[in-house]
């Protein structure tokens, strides 16, 4: 079916504003992504998966301006022993970054690898392309075609420290597009941290291949700058007995759309995706998650919690698809919002689609206010109201934060949420 003219025009206008990087192993993948993009067209407001989130500012040729914001606190993960890699408005900053060498992993930059025999060739754009069915994700195809840089992370062992990717935002008009590929070999284990507002507008894709028995922990914080916009995609493919755990904290940002597409392809694999977000005012946060069970005895958990106030909006679109033959699937999905006032809203579309008969899947979605009984109980013990609200808010988010296995990192995240809550007290 031909694209509506208006969609076609919007897509071509966006493409015309970008340069297609050429001259390396990724050329073919980029060309094919460009073809996919032209077929699908960029998302429009009438698209089913964009009912709750307006894609206009993510698709228009120019990035809307985004002011910088200084929360006056040390950057997240600063205290963590890590290999730190820095991008400033989407441009790699070698000066600010640590040396790429670390035992158990090879890290290269997408913009610098030219050899046609590169290991990433079989993955770059491949997981993204697989993830276009049954739901189209045109902004990810756009990214595969036009990403200017990114990291190619090949984990062969168990690196002694997390790999941390820090996205700084220094230009009010930056429009960054990064594409990372992560391959975790059988039995290997790694933690990847991401943080920072990244750019005025940020489009990021991370393709992740977790081999049999491998483990990947992904913890990210995004936000800080109130006016920044982001669309991110994680495409993860899990082998047998592998573990993938991803947690995201989002604070601030006029628009964030985080898509996570997970395919459990090997038996006994485990995938947990969790998100906590706190939004005040002009804040729109969208988690769109698609988990496919295509093997026996796998476990998946989706835990998403949103705290919204002063007219903030939260969106959750989550699906568990259990394919025929994926017996003994254990699927869990919960999405909840805590609405701190009547102006804020939470829009949820939880879905289950099951083609196997021996499975245990549950999902639930709720939206509620602060528990007045609990609030009074705390206050009657002397806890001032704002502090009591914060305690209850942290308690509400705890189920998501608990998905972080590493206790020190979980504490760091909790402290960040607390800091945000204190800054945003009435």
């Amino acid at each position, binding site marked *: 079916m031909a694209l509506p003219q208006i969609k076609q025009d919007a897509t071509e206008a966006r493409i015309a504003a970008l340069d297609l990087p050429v001259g390396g192993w990724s050329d073919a993948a980029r060309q094919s992504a460009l073809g996919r993009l032209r077929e699908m067209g960029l998302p429009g407001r009438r698209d089913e998966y964009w009912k709750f989130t307006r894609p206009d500012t993510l698709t228009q040729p120019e990035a809307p301006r985004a002011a910088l914001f200084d929360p006056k606190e040390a950057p997240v993960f600063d205290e963590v022993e890590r290999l730190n890699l820095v991008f400033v408005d989407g441009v790699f900053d070698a000066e600010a970054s640590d040396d790429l060498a670390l035992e158990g992993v090879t890290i290269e930059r997408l913009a610098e690898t030219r050899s046609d025999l590169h290991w990433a060739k079989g993955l770059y754009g491949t997981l993204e392309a697989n993830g276009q069915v049954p739901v189209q994700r045109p902004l990810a195809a756009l990214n595969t075609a036009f990403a200017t840089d990114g990291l190619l992370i090949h984990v062969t062992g168990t690196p002694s420290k997390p790999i941390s990717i820090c996205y700084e935002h220094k230009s009010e008009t930056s429009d960054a597009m990064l594409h990372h590929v992560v391959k975790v070999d059988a039995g290997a284990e790694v933690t990847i941290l991401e943080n920072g507002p990244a750019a005025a507008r940020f489009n990021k894709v991370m393709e992740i291949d977790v081999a049999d028995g491998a483990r990947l922990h992904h913890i990210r914080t995004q936000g800080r700058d109130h006016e920044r916009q982001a669309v991110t995609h994680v495409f993860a493919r899990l082998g047998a007995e592998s573990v993938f755990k991803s947690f995201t904290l989002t604070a601030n940002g006029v628009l964030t759309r985080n898509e996570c597409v997970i395919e459990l392809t090997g038996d006994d694999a485990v995938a947990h995706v969790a998100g906590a977000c706190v939004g005040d005012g002009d804040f729109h946060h969208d988690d769109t998650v698609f988990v496919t069970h295509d093997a026996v005895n796998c476990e998946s958990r989706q835990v998403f919690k949103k705290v919204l106030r002063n007219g903030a909006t939260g969106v959750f679109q989550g699906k568990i698809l259990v394919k025929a033959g994926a017996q003994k699937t254990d699927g869990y999905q919960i999405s909840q919002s805590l609405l701190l006032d009547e102006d804020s809203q939470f829009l949820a579309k939880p879905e289950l689609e099951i083609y196997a008969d021996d499975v245990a899947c549950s999902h639930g979605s709720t939206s509620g206010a602060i528990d007045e009984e*609990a609030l*009074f109980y*705390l206050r009657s013990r*002397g*806890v001032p109201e704002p502090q009591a609200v914060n305690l209850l808010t942290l*308690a509400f988010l705890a189920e998501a934060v608990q998905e972080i296995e590493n206790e020190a990192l979980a504490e760091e995240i909790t402290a960040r949420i607390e800091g945000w809550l204190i800054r945003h007290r009435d």
Partner: protein
Amino acid sequence: MLEIKNLHVKLEEEDKQILKGVDLTVEAGKVHAIMGPNGSGKSTLSYVLSGRDGYEVTDGEATLEGNDLLDMEPEERAAAGLFLAFQYPVEIPGVGNMTFLRTALNAQRKARGEEELNATEFLKLIRAKAKDLKIDAEMLKRPVNVGFSGGEKKRNEILQMAMLAPKMCILDETDSGLDVDAMKLVADGVNALRDEGRGFLVITHYQRLLDHIKPDVVHIMSNGRIIKTGGPDLALEVEERGYAHLVEEVA
């Protein structure tokens, strides 16, 4: 200590008068008990004193050491020294008992201009108090009241009271749901706090608690009023004969 004069309270949402002129004074160092039929307004009185939403004071006043209670936020009342052990303690998933108590204690100390307790000092204090009430460390780590049995919840109220060391303690049916041993523990906890500077208002249906916590004064509340005040004997009379004859006396 606590002075309540001609207190009239109605529900905010409905046209329903619940307290119809309560007069009551609890002196420092004394234990007053309130007994009375179900629905007579005992819990309402305790909630209004501690500042819960949903009630409207239409007349009268309540002061704690001369300070107008009704004008304060619930947390200010707590910092001023008022404590209510709830008839139905609230479960708060996700908030650890320890975190809760430490936050509460330090918030009160801060409000009073006192030094906050550090983690070590706090731990030492809570361990000692918890031991007296036979509350184990496991229970302290759990979220506030979540999964606690009825009796455990009540003991947890008394633990909070012991930690916060309030001046005026109101206990709303803290004895209900307690087994004989737990009742003794709770009573010991209360008795340990009895001193000249502290007042108690103990709401109960049973003489049994008053065997352990000997009241100085007993009030009978009925239909939103204190209809009779007497010594400890009054509780015995209720135990024997019920409320009907007392209610008739005033009618």
